[in-house]
């Protein structure tokens, strides 16, 4: 049911401030509902006099439900909360369902950071995140928020974080956000550097995931990232990639990504340029023709000395 203010006793003292749309020919003018126009008029009126009160809290909530991208209404709400001393837990309780309604909104997350940071506790946040990811397991804001929590509350070395990430990968091995989060914990938590020992462990983990679905790019990207962080050469993966692709047996290729890496490995070897070219040709003509231009470009680079693809 729409909510109006002009007939509400509690707002009788406020003269709404209507929107001035600057003359006869505004651009991108929207057919506002009466409800929205009126609420915005009251919002401008209370903002103009810096009123911080319970009724303001209700009004900001009303505006947010219709226009969550209104950037200053969130700041105004945050000010109001601190001015009237609203318990931060109450704000989080309100934010949970609101966030579920506006999953792709930036401002909500900024607000949540502010509140949780002030609360100084991540209690309940893992459950909240899980409920968000149930609706959209690759939601960018949710994963970014999870990273912020890990950093803010130093959860890098908590085994639960890696276990949870593993469970997310288990439930969808193609979820690139989950793989990225794993990288954040494993490599990001160590300032980008990785021991060979830990790298080996991660390589083993990723290889198992690739064997499950060899045409899934996420773990291939991940494993290359791990190699780089541990300063290991791509050729470390030569035997493994050969499980999925062999340029001598072009009919038996199980992963275009394996061919791609193999091409790089061959390009760096002495006297294997021909094999590299063969791998790229297979990609261009047979296994990944949608990127034919790219594979041909890579092939062209093989003839240029000292330029690694």
């Amino acid at each position, binding site marked *: 049911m729409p909510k109006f203010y002009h007939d509400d006793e509690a707002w009788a003292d406020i003269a709404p401030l209507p929107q001035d749309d600057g003359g006869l020919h505004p651009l991108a003018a929207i057919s506002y509902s009466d409800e929205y126009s009126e609420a915005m008029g009251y919002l401008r009126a209370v903002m103009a006099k*810096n009123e911080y009160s319970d009724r303001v809290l209700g009004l900001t909530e009303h505006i947010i439900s219709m226009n969550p991208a209104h950037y200053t209404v969130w700041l105004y709400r945050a000010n109001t909360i601190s001015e009237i001393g609203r318990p931060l837990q109450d704000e989080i309780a309100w934010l949970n369902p609101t966030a579920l309604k506006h999953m792709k909104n930036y401002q909500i997350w900024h607000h949540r950071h502010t509140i949780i940071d002030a609360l100084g506790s991540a209690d309940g946040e893992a459950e909240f995140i899980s409920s968000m990811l149930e609706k959209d397991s690759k939601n960018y804001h949710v994963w*970014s928020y999870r990273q912020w929590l890990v950093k803010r509350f130093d959860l890098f070395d908590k085994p639960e974080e890696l276990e949870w990430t593993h469970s997310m990968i288990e439930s969808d091995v193609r979820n690139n956000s989950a793989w990225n989060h794993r990288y954040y914990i494993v490599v990001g938590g160590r300032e980008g550097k990785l021991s060979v020992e830990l790298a080996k462990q991660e390589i083993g983990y990723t290889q198992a995931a690739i064997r499950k679905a060899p045409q899934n790019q996420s773990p291939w990207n991940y494993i290359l990232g791990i190699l780089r962080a541990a300063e290991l050469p791509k050729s470390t993966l030569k035997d493994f990639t050969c499980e999925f692709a062999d340029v001598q047996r072009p009919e038996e290729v199980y992963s275009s990504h394996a061919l791609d890496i193999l091409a790089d490995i061959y390009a760096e070897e002495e006297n294997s340029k021909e094999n590299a070219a063969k791998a790229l040709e297979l990609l261009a003509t047979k296994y990944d023709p*949608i990127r034919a231009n790219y594979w041909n470009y890579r092939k062209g680079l093989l003839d240029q000395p000292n330029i690694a693809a």
Partner: protein
Amino acid sequence: MAPASFETSRLNHARHVKYWRRNLKTLLPQYYTSNDSNRMLLALFTVSALDILGDLDAALSAEERQDHIDWVYSCQVPEGGFRPWPGSDFGKLRNQENKKWDPAHIPGTFFALLTLVVLRDDLQKVKRREILEWLVKMQRPEGSFGETLGSDGFVHGGHDSRFGYMATAIRWILRGNLEGSCEGVPDIDVDQFVTCVRAAECYDGGISEAPFSEAHGGFTCCAIAALAFLDRLPLSPSQKPDRVIRGVSDVPKTLHWLVSRQTLTLDEDDGLDTYNDETDSSETCHDAHTFVKMGAYQSVQGNSNSKGRPHIHYELEWVGMNGRCNKVADTCYAYWSCVPLQLLGRLDIVDRQPIRKWLLDKTQHMVGGFGKVTGDPPDLYHSFLGLLVIAMFGEPGLEGVDPALCITNKAKKHLESLSWRRRLTGMDDAQDEGITLAAERMHIQA
């Protein structure tokens, strides 16, 4: 060279004109209310789309054009910079105590300046000096830019490359490529910004919101466009190294990530893998969609799926682009992925024809405009970005565009010809002055 079907995929020029004229002349439907605070973005898209379609002059009388210009200026805040909508304006009640709720806004300023340029205004009424002073305050110590400035000097908004893109574009619009202080106004910290962009590079070659976040087409495009505005993209091998910090740090890896955005996974159902083993059909192979396993992995279902197919590559005629690894194609990501390729000088490593065909055959809508995915109704955002991609591919009947600035080359030339800007950027000399003035006069008459 072009397949026969090239002829059947057509940009329905008249419908697009109709769609954008309707957006210009009538109120946007109520569901745009959630975009109310982005009205300046919608404003730019509307006038720039008509400019790209070559219809802007016909669509507007001189008086209407002036009224639109005046509307944009009505969003300029007294301290300099623009609000992105009239919604936060207190009018006569605006004062020192409440102006914090009506701040200048980075996207608002970016889209307002471009809207003025597209409408061929001379930006003489823009508080240019104040904007440049404010830009410096909008940068955080680690290099990123925010959305608005609090009264306590705190920079509100995300730390990602979107605001950096718009801030560096504002700087380019108002002072070109000049580095260092300009007419007494200090410059932003360009080196620190480049450092910040590099810190958000991911292990797979894409760029993300923040260090160690997931690579994302939108952030990758914004970051690379910002580096272009700052003249900080990597030098080509033929150029002399200059010890200046540049980004991105590993161009081959970034190119690899960008071309990986081409996908045949065109809707959510394509993403389903019924047997959970990737074997049932080529449809289930994300980002290598035509990948056909010839060996023992092929399942019964896989065989039956490919039976009766005219050609194993026939579906390659339509290729979409996604914004992240293992996501479905979406009209706007054709923009976010192709623009950085163009800025890096390597648009040739994607095949433009199937992308064009996908946009025209799959997401172009009967009523004009483009939807997000096949079958979606058009919205201003996807309609504009889809049109920009088609235009940047050189579609006959469309104006040439500068896709990173979201305007036509003609509009950009207009900006570059303005006398105040030529003076600042050192482009001014007596010889050219006459030509410039003549060009400006012509625009006024247009």
